[in-house]
């Protein structure tokens, strides 16, 4: 099975290689599909809202202060993950691990706060079946929370990998951190739109 196929011939060829690594291009294309996914949900939200005669105001039915705290937490986690990337770029392992751990803690905090937001709702007998508003609220925030869980898994994986020398010294490692960061920032952007759409307007 010996072979002389030389991937460098392709990777270093400006005519046939875009200059973006496969991994980064893959992440961006994945995000493109995610954009369509959430765009569809927002379209459904707009349609349902327009096709109704009245729509509740977020301040009346949801816990806005808690959601504001959550917004701050999530944007903070975007900040920490970009710091983790900066540390990884400078090959500072301790710094990377510190900021990545902070990111994971913040995202866990987001989920806990989310739980505090859901809990009283369920206790009061309010669920997705209550009204179209709650249906879209629980579906969109729930789907967003699933994305958060996925992001935590990826970030925790990277944090573990940084403790293994073979992974930390791998030249691909920085690209992996960048990819995880892209996904995380995207989850943040989704929240940036969800927050006003559901809670404020």
């Amino acid at each position: 099975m010996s072979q002389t196929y030389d991937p460098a011939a392709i990777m270093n060829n400006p005519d046939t290689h875009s200059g973006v690594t496969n991994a980064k291009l893959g992440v961006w294309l994945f995000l493109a599909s995610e954009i369509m996914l959430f765009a569809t949900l927002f379209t459904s939200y707009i349609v349902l809202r327009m096709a109704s005669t009245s729509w509740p105001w977020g301040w009346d039915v949801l816990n806005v202060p808690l959601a504001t705290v959550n917004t701050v937490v999530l944007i903070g986690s975007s900040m920490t993950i970009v710091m983790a990337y900066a540390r990884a770029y400078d090959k500072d392992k301790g710094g990377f691990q510190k900021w990545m751990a902070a990111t994971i803690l913040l995202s866990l905090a987001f989920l806990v706060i989310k739980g505090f937001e859901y809990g009283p709702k369920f206790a009061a007998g309010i669920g997705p079946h209550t009204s179209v508003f709650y249906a879209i609220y629980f579906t969109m925030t729930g789907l967003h929370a699933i994305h958060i869980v996925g992001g935590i898994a990826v970030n925790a994986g990277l944090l573990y990998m940084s403790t293994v020398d073979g992974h930390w010294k791998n030249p691909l490692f920085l690209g992996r951190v960048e990819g995880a960061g892209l996904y995380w920032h995207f989850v943040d952007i989704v929240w940036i739109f969800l927050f006003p759409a559901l809670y404020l307007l």
Partner: protein
Amino acid sequence: MSKNPDAATHDEHRPNVALYVKVFAALMALTLITVAISKIHLPPAQAVSLGLFVALIKAALVAALFMHLWGENKLIHKALWVTVGLGAALILPIIDFVLISGQHTSRADVANQHPPGHAEPATEGH
């Protein structure tokens, strides 16, 4: 580079921590602004457009600077433009509902579907 072509070292962005801090501060400020705006009862059209505008600025900041879209390879830009262009077609269902609203749709009174008395107590009145 030929040693490990996947690494393509020119591909990663040099981080700029001072900039990240500024972006973070701006995002925090905009979050407070958007919450504050929503407390003033603006007419729905203005409230929605203002809220959407602020959200767009925040998203643009994150995308351009945290995600390094500013100065990213043109290919990524093209892929995103294609996505935005084709995603724009999702406006058509909305247009349809604008046009048929009230004729062929059964419209629900959503705000009053909620069980009374379970409204979340807001921290301060409005």
